[in-house]
């Protein structure tokens, strides 16, 4: 039986979709059968980030409305064994799917896949409610900005209220140089404020923009710092201990971070 993990943030534009795509690639690289589910109905994007936009025939709403079978709507990524996408509908809106229907779809996907990553839309309305409906656990993506951290805190509260086990945090777009100069909150600051468990730190990386332009997630090829960070997160999702040592420039604050998390 597969595990359903929802990727949330509250605020838009902090990297939920990029995180979903890259984590999916990293998990499939570990040999896990992984399905990425775009829950952002009406604002479909996971397909273009993955470079699979030309292969869509059916979508999530078609499955829910019974126009096709689940298997027909799944797109297999030919570049990477084990990775599939269930795209959102682009012409409908959030109300086209109910939380119960969403749960039914994720439960069906569990039969087939080891991991189902659900890319939640921004906000706290029905799209978000749908995205968390079938989730076993949640990841929260936040950037080191006040608006993002504030929204993350709200999402953590809502997920607690929905009785999803405590979410784990991915801090995205960290710029170690700015942190050292006192111009950006550190990972430690954010963990301290949100009081949740950290699962990953992704540095700001221009390669994310370049690879997304091409529809080839950074994690597909080696050599990008962000890609390395996503691979570490995939290992941690599997329950393995990986030291938080990904940011070579990070010096001071990461060594403190390692002390906090008991890794020397």
């Amino acid at each position, binding site marked *: 039986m597969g595990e359903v993990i929802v990727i949330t943030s509250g605020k838009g534009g902090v990297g939920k979709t990029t995180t979903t795509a890259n984590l999916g690639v990293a998990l499939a690289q570990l040999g896990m059968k992984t399905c990425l589910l775009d829950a952002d109905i009406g604002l479909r994007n996971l397909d273009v980030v993955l470079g699979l936009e030309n292969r869509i025939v059916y979508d999530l709403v078609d499955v829910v409305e019974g126009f096709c079978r689940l298997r027909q709507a799944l797109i297999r990524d030919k570049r990477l064994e084990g990775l599939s996408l269930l795209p959102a509908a682009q012409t409908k809106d959030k109300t086209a799917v109910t939380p119960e229907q969403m749960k039914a779809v994720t439960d069906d996907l569990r039969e087939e896949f080891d991991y189902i990553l659900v890319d939640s839309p921004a906000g706290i309305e029905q799209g978000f409610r749908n995205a968390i409906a079938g989730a076993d656990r949640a990841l929260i993506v936040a950037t080191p*900005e*006040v608006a993002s951290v*504030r929204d993350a805190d*709200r999402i953590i*509260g809502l997920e607690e209220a929905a009785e999803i086990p405590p979410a784990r945090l991915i801090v995205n777009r960290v710029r170690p140089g700015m942190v050292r100069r*006192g111009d950006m909150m550190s990972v430690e*600051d954010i963990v301290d*404020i949100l009081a949740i468990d950290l699962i990953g730190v992704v540095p700001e990386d221009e390669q994310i923009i370049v690879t997304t332009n091409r529809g080839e997630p950074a994690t597909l090829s080696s050599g990008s710092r962000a890609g390395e960070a996503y691979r570490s997160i995939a290992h941690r999702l599997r329950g393995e201990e990986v030291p938080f040592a990904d940011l070579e420039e990070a010096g001071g604050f990461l060594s403190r971070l390692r002390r906090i998390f008991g890794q020397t």
Partner: protein
Amino acid sequence: MLTLFGRSPSRDVAKNRLRNVLAHDRADTSPEFMELLRQDVIRTVSEYVELSGQNIDLKLQNADDHVAIVANIPIKQLKRRGRPGNN
């Protein structure tokens, strides 16, 4: 910690502002939290003090660089308590 120009690093400012705004957000989005706290304060204080009714007022207030829980607790009288060892 201040910079050359006498201003705190923006990192610290962000942290403090977030702490304040989240205290209010959490209190606003979880009225039951404030109610539980109020009930607990009533229970604890009434061990020492005879309260004048149950109308204690509890709210978050912004101070300069922190948020405070400010309580207004009308009392009838303090309870009589011997010093330890005297009774």
